[in-house]
């Protein structure tokens, strides 16, 4: 096995025990990038010299007997919406093609302090708007499991980098499924964290009441390791929460108490529209949990069927507001214009891609006088009902088990001409964002050589330990 193929845990343990060096891992990772990046296209920027230098720094610290962090020497990629000082942060948009991050995001700082080797910035749908990474302003990313198919999105580059062993882990951001759906499509693990569990300082915002950063990894155990490092309250993000405290138990769960978790199956997620492959995989997965002694019962989330509609009002409304800052004045390229208004119109008209323009215009409409209450106000009320459904369900059960996506990965161009069809890819992932609760994609086992299918475990707010523990039990058996 090549060093870049190891899990994050095995990588860090091997380096700390002196079995191999961080530099060897970095070189193996860069070799893999040389070999496969051309056909996959996961990265927007990789700085090889920096990768080798930061790996060498980890080796030097170990050689001199110094203390190294919990992720020492692990090659980790960052979605290009996360700021890493001095590096490009394009958010997949031409409007930011010349921008370089002026400061570090909190997650970047924490990962670096833990000893990560930052491999590069990954491709994504422009401003995280999309479910296939086809909306990137720069290039396509191909699914390493089948190059004819999309990697999912919007964190498609991060998912592909991990699935192709071009990073041991990556960070993504998830507003309506952008970590979990590409993780499901590429056959890896992806954790959407509880709202407020991870600081978003230095994350280019899309929809601020929904966005969360989370890990994308080869195993659930790896996701727990990265999550533990990046979680926690941050004075620089006022939405981060003091409840975000996670001890060592999140890395070493007590499986006896995990086995006592009650699993709920929300019936609305299984009412038609599932691919036969997904349907079959879900029955197998539910069967596995029953066979292993779990209590499994049907529950109902009656308002989840409205989640997509609520999302496609709230998200564009918030995005249209957040993206107002990309005005050609403070960042990126400045085009020639006779006055300020023409500069705005031109810079934004030429700098943004189709999906971004579509969502900003939609958001502007739903927030406009005369329509505000009918659309935005109504959607906020239905969002409250969706959250209440989860609160009720979690009185009966501890976690929910559902498919992550209704289909297996689709082919390029299959949905890119019809926005509504594309939006339906996120139908099972959006509700967790609306309710602010954590959810984990886990690849269904036994699908080697076939297109990946993922299942989703959703938990109570700040109870990542439950869903990660359940996932570790599933993958360790």
């Amino acid at each position, binding site marked *: 096995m090549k060093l870049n193929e190891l899990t994050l845990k095995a990588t860090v343990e091997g380096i700390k025990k002196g079995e191999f060096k961080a530099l060897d891992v970095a070189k193996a990772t860069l070799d893999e990038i040389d070999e496969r990046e051309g056909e996959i296209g996961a990265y927007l920027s990789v700085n090889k010299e920096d990768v080798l230098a930061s790996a060498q720094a980890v080796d030097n610290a170990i050689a001199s007997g110094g203390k190294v962090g919990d992720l020492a020497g692990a090659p980790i990629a960052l979605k290009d919406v996360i700021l890493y000082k001095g590096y490009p942060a394009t958010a997949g948009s031409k409007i930011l093609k010349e921008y*370089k991050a*002026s*400061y570090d995001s909190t997650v970047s700082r924490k990962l670096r302090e833990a000893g990560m080797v930052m491999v590069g910035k990954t491709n994504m749908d422009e401003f995280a708007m999309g479910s296939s990474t086809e909306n990137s302003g720069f290039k396509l990313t191909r699914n390493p499991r089948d190059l004819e198919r999309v990697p999912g999105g919007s964190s498609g580059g991060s998912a592909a980098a991990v699935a192709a062993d071009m990073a041991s882990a990556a960070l993504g951001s998830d507003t309506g499924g952008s970590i979990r759906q590409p993780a499901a499509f590429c056959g890896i693990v992806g954790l959407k964290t509880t*709202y*407020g569990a991870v600081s978003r300082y230095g994350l280019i915002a899309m929809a601020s*009441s*929904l966005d969360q950063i989370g890990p994308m990894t080869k195993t659930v155990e790896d996701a727990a390791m990265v999550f533990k490092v990046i979680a926690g309250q941050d*004075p*620089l993000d*006022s*939405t981060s*929460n003091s409840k975000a405290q996670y001890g060592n138990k999140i890395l070493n769960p007590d499986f006896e108490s995990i086995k006592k978790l009650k699993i709920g199956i929300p019936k609305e997620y299984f009412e038609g529209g599932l691919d036969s492959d997904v349907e079959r995989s879900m029955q197998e997965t539910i069967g596995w949990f029953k066979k292993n002694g779990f209590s499994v019962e049907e529950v109902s989330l009656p308002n989840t069927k*409205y989640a*997509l*509609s*609520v999302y*496609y*009002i709230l998200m564009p409304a918030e995005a*249209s507001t957040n993206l*107002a800052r990309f*005005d*050609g*004045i*403070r*960042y*990126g390229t*400045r085009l020639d*214009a*006779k*006055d*300020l208004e023409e*500069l*705005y*119109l031109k810079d*934004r*008209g*030429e700098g*943004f891609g*189709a999906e971004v*323009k*579509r969502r*900003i*215009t*939609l958001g*502007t*409409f739903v927030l406009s006088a005369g329509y505000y209450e009918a659309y935005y*106000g*109504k*959607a*906020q*009320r*239905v*969002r*409250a*009902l969706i*959250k209440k459904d989860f609160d009720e369900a979690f009185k009966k059960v501890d976690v929910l088990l559902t498919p992550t996506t209704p289909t297996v990965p689709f082919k390029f161009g299959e949905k890119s001409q019809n*926005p*509504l069809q594309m*939006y339906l890819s996120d139908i099972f992932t959006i509700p967790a964002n609306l309710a*602010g609760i954590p959810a984990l994609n886990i690849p269904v086992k036994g699908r080697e050589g076939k297109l990946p299918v993922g299942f989703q475990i959703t938990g109570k707010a700040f109870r990542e330990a439950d869903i990660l523990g359940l996932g570790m039990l599933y993958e360790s058996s």
Partner: protein
Amino acid sequence: MRKYATLARIKLTEEEQTRYQKDLEEILGHVTELTKVKTEGVEPMTGGTELRNVFREDAPGEKDVFAPAFPEESNGHLKVPKILDYEA
């Protein structure tokens, strides 16, 4: 469509206007299903968190961090095109 794009300060071509108009009609057609949901007496969920009034010390951070990213600058200040058109 033109009105809202202009409000959002985005210049669209004729072709874009026609295309997005159709897309938006389709999306808005879908979301009208929300009118079926009874929401009398339901308080709107206005954000993702229950936290209120979060304060921190307003301490100065690093200086001169942002100027290098400006597309046009002058002595560390951001330069913009003229806003008012007048003859002195």
